[in-house]
């Protein structure tokens, strides 16, 4: 019951934040240099005089700013995020088409990063001053410092021309389209490089975090007790210690979702992955503002959703936390 109340509070907060994002979008449209109608139509959208006149009427651009804001909010609440004149379709549909591809990429990267990062961190925590531990530290520093679009391009170079064993372009084979299971395998094969590239940044951060947490946890009394009871080392590490060391990682994964999404924009651009990132790139290139604004809004939706999910997972794996404790 308390959980429901808690969840309700979270959702109310989320609604307020999203409303604020919409107000921000509105303010940006009106503070950007140039006529707002240009921003709404997109600079290179090829909007005709009639279209511009109809936009003026639709968004009430002759009325006061407050009235315009309410018109804008009203439109959005009806699911109308504007029309992309470059793609020639409503923005909402455009985003709905592209969202799944980005979610596959993001989820594959998160899973890869958490599993590899945690394992590296745990392994290096066992001998914090050993050779392996130092190697992990170096690798994670390098992973953090390397720009994700650059590692992407280098991998594209490697697997595109030097050692062509993996597809480096798009989401599936368009020359020889496949059906059923074969299609699924094809998509997975195309997913390997983009998700590995994106995961690299986060492997770096998670392995560092896992390492520090494991070092802390391994010196805790209950781990000593577990060892003193004569439990096998693998049980001590994976059952007693890891569970506690994982909690901060879950938090960070949730907090990092916005960065993950932004990273996906860059990675999708490198590999022509047909997701929202690719959409962002095209909208920037064409100055397609309505699409860009809507992507900003939906990325906020994704971040908030990720935060709520993290909060719930947190409660699940850490029984000490109860609703209202914070």
């Amino acid at each position, binding site marked *: 019951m308390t959980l429901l109340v808690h969840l309700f509070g979270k959702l109310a907060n989320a609604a307020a934040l999203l409303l604020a994002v919409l107000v921000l979008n509105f303010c940006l449209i009106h503070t950007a240099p140039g006529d707002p109608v240009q921003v709404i139509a997109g600079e290179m959208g090829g909007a005709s005089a009639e279209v511009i006149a109809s936009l003026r009427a639709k968004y009430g651009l002759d009325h006061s700013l407050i009235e315009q804001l309410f018109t804008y909010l009203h439109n959005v609440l009806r699911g109308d995020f504007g029309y992309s004149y470059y793609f020639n379709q409503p923005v909402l549909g455009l985003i709905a088409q592209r969202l799944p591809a980005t979610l596959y990429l993001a989820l594959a990267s998160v899973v890869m990063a958490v599993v590899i990062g945690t394992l590296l961190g745990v392994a290096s925590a066992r001998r914090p001053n050993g050779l392996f531990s130092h190697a992990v530290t170096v690798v994670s520093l390098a992973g953090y410092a390397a720009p994700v679009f650059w590692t992407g391009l280098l991998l594209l170079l490697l697997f595109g021309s030097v050692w062509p064993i993996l597809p480096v372009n798009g989401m599936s084979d368009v020359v020889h389209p496949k059906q059923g299971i074969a299609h699924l395998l094809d998509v997975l094969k195309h997913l390997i490089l983009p998700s590995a590239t994106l995961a690299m940044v986060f492997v770096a951060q998670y392995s560092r975090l896992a390492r520090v947490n494991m070092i802390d946890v391994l010196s805790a009394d209950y781990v000593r007790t577990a060892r003193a009871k004569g439990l096998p080392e693998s049980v001590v590490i994976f059952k007693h210690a890891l569970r506690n060391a994982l909690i901060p990682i879950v938090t960070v994964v949730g907090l990092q979702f*916005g960065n993950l999404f932004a990273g996906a924009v860059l990675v999708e651009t490198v590999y022509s992955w047909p997701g929202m990132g690719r959409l962002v790139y095209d909208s920037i290139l064409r100055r397609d503002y309505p699409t860009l604004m809507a992507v900003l809004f939906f990325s906020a939706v994704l971040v908030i959703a990720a935060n709520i999910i993290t909060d719930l997972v947190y409660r699940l794996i850490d029984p000490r936390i109860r609703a209202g404790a914070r």
Partner: protein
Amino acid sequence: MSTLESPLAVAESENAKSAAGPSRSASVAELPVAKAVSPTRAALRQFGKSPSGVAGAILLVLLVAATIFGPFIYHVDPLEIVGMPFAPPDADALLGTDYLGRDVLSGLIHGGRATLTVGAVAALITIVIGVSVGALAGFFGGWMDSLLVKITEFFQVLPPLLFAMVLVTLFGAKLSTITLAIGVVSWPSAARLTRAEFMRLRDLDFIKASRAAGAGSWHLILRVALPNALPPIIVSATLAIGVAILFEGGLSFLGLGDPNTMSWGLMIGQNRNYVLDAWWAVTFPGAAIFLAVLAVSLVGDGINDAVNPRLRRR
């Protein structure tokens, strides 16, 4: 009071607790105080003991020096066409030419100026906004805190790089806009950090003593609390430089670089479609970004270890 107001006094007092606790009161009674080391110097000495931190500092100095003095040694205009497009590295162009036939090495030297400046200035903006918000929220608490925390929370909902992209697209790809946009989107973590520091400091005795002595709020915030909150802020400022450099690269990569100013990000962004024809035009600027971010991260880690005695054993 004066020793407590000096920077890094927190680190000092933590040291004092473990090592020199009793000697403090004793020092009043004419014991030699010459052994006392200023906390800043102690932190510097500690920093010097960290090989990775020193390596990062040297790397950073080398990179900055190359961008400052490079143009005096290597006289090639980065925007001028000096040869065939995609000429591989050879004696004429040491690191090859780009898609227009411009010299890559010259681009690296001049581009470094822009990229490193954007990094430093954007980090400064980040820290000024973040510290102001965090200090006011943490120090005053109450409605001010609730309001500022809400604003911070709002900014954290927007993915920083994406928000910066929208800002630069709307307001134009000029170097000043890019710098400002990066600063405006990345302050929340600095604000949270500063807020936590100020909330901790607010209730400590020396702040209470200053307050009781009649110090005003601004004096307390700027002259008493801020110097003591500096160590973590310095660390986060260092890391913010790295993030800003990566952001400049990311924005330019997406075509949002300032086409009139050579920068490392711009070089990658303009040459990326030809990566299979001319690997050098993309690989070298990327390596430069990588080294710069690596250097500031190493320095940041080194400072962190030096001012956080608790973490030294790690």
